[in-house]
């Protein structure tokens, strides 16, 4: 197994830091990092439960981010096994990436002790300092456990709709958060409408967005309206982390079961799945 990647400018390192920050907000203390031939994935370690979430942030090597990317997986002769799975504490990465950095190198490195897991060696440099080296402990995941990190299957009868800009939704969700709402119902119609409903101690607020586009190719639901109820504290960090993005978010709703938020741009792809809340 072999992995190293280099980012050589402030913009790339800043983007990378934002995605690490998003990973720490969306998940719990630990995250899974899947290193593959075409890029890096930061993924949830959790399973999808009632009100819980699963996410994957993919950073492609072909984007503007990586200046160098060298990789060889667990078994590079078999494509399905040409991967590296590891788990790490996200905060270790967050602490290392503080400041205005202009250079970042990540390298999977063996430790002197033969029975210990390798580490990720991180070299960073800011404009006015020399290179600083950090070592982040990680745990290599054996291939027999890889399936537990797989994306949950979505099932059929999806209603697919492109959401308003992340900034608009972030403002609405911030309003619900300020009023201590706990559960928000997302309703999407086949006619391009999105309605958010929140009930709080002080009253009820519904917000309706019109003239949105449905993804007809992905929609296989026969309903006029699809509905799912999500915990605000689970879905808010998604928009808090990505409200600066210009790319549109697509929402797939499987009524009363789950919602999938996905976003795609040159430098990242995001998938975020949240389970329905049963009250």
């Amino acid at each position, binding site marked *: 197994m072999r992995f190293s990647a280099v980012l050589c400018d402030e913009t790339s390192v800043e983007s990378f830091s934002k995605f690490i920050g998003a990973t720490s907000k969306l998940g719990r203390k630990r995250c899974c990092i899947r290193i593959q031939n075409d890029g890096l994935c930061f993924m949830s370690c959790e399973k999808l439960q009632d009100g819980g979430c699963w996410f994957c942030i993919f950073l492609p090597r072909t984007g503007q981010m990586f200046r160098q990317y060298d990789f060889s997986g667990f078994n590079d002769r078999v494509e399905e096994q040409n991967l590296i799975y590891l788990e790490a504490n996200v905060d270790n990465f967050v602490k290392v990436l503080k400041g205005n950095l202009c250079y970042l190198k990540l390298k999977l490195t063996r430790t002197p002790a033969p029975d210990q897991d390798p580490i990720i060696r991180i070299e960073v440099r800011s404009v006015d300092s020399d290179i600083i080296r950090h070592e982040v402990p990680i745990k290599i995941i054996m291939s027999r456990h890889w399936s537990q990190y797989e994306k949950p299957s979505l099932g059929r009868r999806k209603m697919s709709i492109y959401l*308003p800009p992340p900034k*608009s939704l972030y*403002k*609405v969700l911030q*309003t619900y958060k*300020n*009023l201590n709402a706990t559960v928000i119902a997302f309703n999407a119609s086949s006619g391009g409408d999105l309605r958010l409903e929140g009930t*709080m*101690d*002080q*009253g*009820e*607020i*519904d*917000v*309706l*967005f*019109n*003239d949105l586009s449905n993804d007809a190719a992905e929609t296989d639901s026969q309903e006029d309206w699809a509905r799912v109820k999500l915990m605000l504290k689970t879905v808010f960090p998604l928009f808090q982390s990505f409200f600066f993005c210009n790319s549109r978010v697509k929402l797939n709703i499987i009524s009363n079961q789950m919602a999938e938020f996905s976003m795609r741009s040159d430098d990242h792809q995001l998938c975020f799945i949240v389970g329905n809340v049963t009250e």
Partner: protein
Amino acid sequence: MTTVAKLLEFKKENVKELASIIKALTFREIGKLSATPGGLRIVVGDGALQQNIIKIMINSFPGNAYMETCFFSSFVCRDETIEVNFPLKALSECLNLGDASSSSLSLSYAGFCEPLMLKIHDGNHSVKAKIHTLSSNETNDFNFEVSEIVANCILKTTFLHDFFRDLDTTSPNLVIEVSERELSFVTQGEIGMTTCTIPLKSLQMDVIACSRPVTYGYRLSAIQRMTPAIGLSNRASLRIDNRGVLNLQLMIDHGDSLKSYIEFFVGFFFN
């Protein structure tokens, strides 16, 4: 099926104008909406029977000579007086969702035990909200008698806002001194004593009318609540009566001769 007419209904274009005023008052949980056919007031009280009470009102009267430039595009109040308490933050947050200049609001209230019903249209989205109400209670109206005014200053608010924003927060009180030549604000905190004086000849000051020099102290925490409202306003009228009650009336000029007012009453702490 006949629809029951609402007790109070009004519409407003450019929701941001109302949103910023409500936001400036959201330092207490509950406000009182008080409507008559002549207009709307929102009163925020700070408890009762204590000397550091604050009372804030927005007055906006659509029944004046400038009907086409009213604060509200339509206003109907079907009772002599309507009073209802409501959660300020809920209204403030709802109004905040209408931030485009082309946004419009309609608000209605059907009567006792009914909620405030809001509809906001804002370009690409619309908001429907139901805000629970509570029964109204008595608030201290301070009996601020015009004939008993001992000091009256009319001034612009540019400098006043800068000063209030930078008040020494380690000082527990603000002392206001008015004489026929100047208006002074004094704080005494960890950095020492700070005196800020606006003389009559200053371009900020329009009028000082003072029958005798007065000095009264007010709780700084009460005074600080006025700062956001001062920031919205263009002119202020600062009056003190012979009991030491401070009345600060702030005028917000929305353009096109359209004005609204926020008024504060503060009981003095010491003199």
